[in-house]
Structure formats: C-alpha cells, structure tokens
C-alpha cells in the first residue's frame, strides 16, 4: 500500500543560499499554502524525513554536512534542489568556495527553477518528487523480495 505518498515528511537545509529560497520554502507552511493538506510536515530530523529540500549551491564548509544529512535519511528518499543556486550555483557560481549545484555532492531527483523559486513551484516540485519516491519504494520492496527469494533458493539448494 502506498502510504508514503500521503505522508511525505520534509527536511529543509540551507546550503549557503541567499535565504530567498528558504523564505519561499517556509512560506509553503503558512496558512495561505498550507502544505499540511497533503500530509506534508516540516521535520528538523533527517531520520524522520522522506524528502530533502535543499537550497543554495553548497560551499566547501557545508559539503560534508549535506552528505551526512543525506546519508542519515532512511530509504526510500528523494532530493529536491530548490532555486537556481541549488541547480547550478546560480549567482554564486563563480565564487571560489561554491561547489556549483547540489548534484555535485548528492544525487538530485527534482530541480525547481527560479530565483527565488515560488511557493507554487516548490509545492509542484514536491508533488513530482512524490511519484519518484513511490517508484523508489516499489523498487526497494522488489529488491527485498528478490533478495529473499535468492536466499530461499540458496537454502533449498543446500537442503538437497
């Protein structure tokens, strides 16, 4: 059953953005946009999160932080890069300390364009991410089944 799509919990991380995109992310939680309608909750804990919303182009100091956060999230998980900075480094691209996009450090599933990205776009990006999340979950359970079957086959092989 697909509960995952109905209850995506979000982790929001600011990887050296100008704060513009972050304000738009938080705007999604206000009464006007109210993403809790879709069961979306903004959690501060990577271990509870399903979707990582990340803004900014990642600088050398928060590179390990981003990787750490990503690794702490339990599978299945998706990453949504928000804003021009998160996609390519944006206006900060030429800076000596900027990695130039989130996908330089961790795999990204959805890019939301804009400078700053609008709340409607962010919600749209999250909804896109949900179907990817669902795909990943199916793949995960599929893999678990294959592993299980392989194990059974191996055991049966030993038995005979």
């Amino acid at each position, binding site marked *: 059953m697909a509960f*995952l799509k*109905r*209850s995506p919990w979000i982790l929001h991380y600011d990887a050296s953005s100008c704060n513009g995109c972050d304000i738009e992310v938080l705007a999604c939680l206000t009464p006007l946009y109210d993403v809790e*309608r879709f*069961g979306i909750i903004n959690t*501060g804990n990577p*271990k509870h999160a399903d979707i990582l919303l990340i803004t900014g182009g990642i600088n050398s100091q928060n590179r390990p932080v981003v990787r750490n956060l990503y690794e702490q999230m339990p599978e*299945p998980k998706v990453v949504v890069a928000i804003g021009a900075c998160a996609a390519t480094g944006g206006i900060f691209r030429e800076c000596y300390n900027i990695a130039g996009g989130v996908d330089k450090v961790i795999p990204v599933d959805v890019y939301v364009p804009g400078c700053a990205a609008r709340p409607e776009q962010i919600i749209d990006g999250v909804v896109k991410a949900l179907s990817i999340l669902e795909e990943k979950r199916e793949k995960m359970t599929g893999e678990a089944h294959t592993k299980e079957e392989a194990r059974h086959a191996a055991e049966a092989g030993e038995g005979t």
Partner: protein
Amino acid sequence: MNGLIGAVLFLILAPIAGGLIAGIDRKITARMQGRVGPPLLQPFYDVGKLFEKENVVVTTAQNFYVLAYLVFIALSGAIFFAGGDLLLIIFAFTLAHVFLVLGAYAVHSPYSHIGAERELIQVMAYEPMIILAAVGLYMVTNSFYVADIAAATVPAILYLPGVFLGFAVILTIKLRKSPFDISTSHHAHQEIVKGITTEFSGSTLGQVEIAHWYENIFLLGFVYLFFSWNPVIGVAAVAVTYVAEIFVDNVTARVRWQAALKSGWLAAAVLGLVNLAILSYMTIGGA
C-alpha cells in the same frame, strides 16, 4: 469476565480511536490557525508510512525498549479498561515511560539524551498529581478498583473539582501539548531536533506513535472516571476537556522545563492537596 472483554476491546479499538482522535486534533488545530489541515485519516497514513520505511537502527537495544514501552502502555490501559487496580495501572504506566527514556538513552546522541532528560522531568512533574487523583477517587468511592469507581453513583467531580483541575494541568503534559511539550511535541519539529524520538525512525517511531494513541485513550478514560455517575455527561466532559487541551495547545508557547516542573507540582500541592484536605475534613466532620 467483563474485565477481560474490556481489556480485549481496549487493545483492539484503542489504536483506531486514538488515531481518529489524533486526526480530529490536527484538523481542529489547523482550523484554529486558519488552515485547511490534513485529512482526518492522516495519522494512519503517517504510521503506515513509517512501517514502509527502512528501519535505521543505531543500537538494537533501542528497539527492544520501545517495544517494551508500547507493551506496558497497552498493558496499563488494558488493566484500566478491565476495571483493575488504579495504583497498579499507574505503576505500569510509569514503568512504560521509564522504558521509553532508556530507549532514548541507549543511543549516543546528545539530542536524544536531552529529550530523555526532559521526559524524566515530565514524569517527575506529573507523577504526584496522578497519584493524588487516584487517592481522591478512592476517598470518594472507597475503592482503588476502576470497575468500582466507574460504577459509583456519587458524582466524583463535585467532591474533587480541585483534583480534576490539577489532573487537567498534567493532562497537558501527558498529551504532549504546549506549554508543557518539553520532551517532544507534535508541532515543534525544529527544536532540539525532535527530542526523545530523535533517534527512532521507521517502524520504531511508528510504535512510539501507536503507544501514544493507547496512552491518550487511557488518559481520556481516566478523565471519564470523574464523571462516571452519568455516562452522557461523562462523554461530553471528556470531549470538552480534550477540545480545551487543543485550545490551550494553540494559544500558549512552550515554557522552560523548570516552569513545567513547578506547574505540575504546584497543581498537585495547591489544587490536589487542598482539595483532598477539605474533603477529608468534611468526611470526618460528617461521620
């Protein structure tokens, strides 16, 4: 026999009722904040999702402790609905929380440890009042057995208004609502990460959530005891109490742990003890 049926019904129905109440809670909260809010069944989606996720285990001991927490919460509620001894119920209930705290301490994470410490402070804050509530009900009905208290014809609330108010104060602590949601809460998802549940994820977190549903139903059952001489008034009082808790949750900010501890003890000392003192004076005078 009746008791057994009560216990079984509780074990089966409480998660359903608890989840629904949590859904209504979130809906009312959203409306109070001018939002639409999540679907009514959202808590079930959340827990269903948690069981679908990968289970990241830091120490295997933590899963064992959380399971013990769930079992003992369910046990204390089952004894309650079986009409058992109120004191035994309170001890089982406290033990359950000790397991939750141990589960959080089992992981080497400062956030989890802060949450565990705060949970211990909460236990300290509500424990005196919950025992006084049991004593008060005993003084009115002459029995510690829930079955006898529920069957009593005296309106306990008229004898125990102070005790009831004190109980309402610690109910806020127990339901993890503001201003006393210091160890973990439903709304503040950003403060000291997630408190006591920081290191629990996937199905382990789902178990914590289910335990919380059991716990809420048990606590609302406790509220009902004060009004049990008339079932209609009883159910209405439980509903009013819960909506009042949601209201308080939405209009107050979280206090510091010192204030939470003081409020719990002040409620016990002033509302609880004074009420009981007057009650014992009256009954001795009357005899």
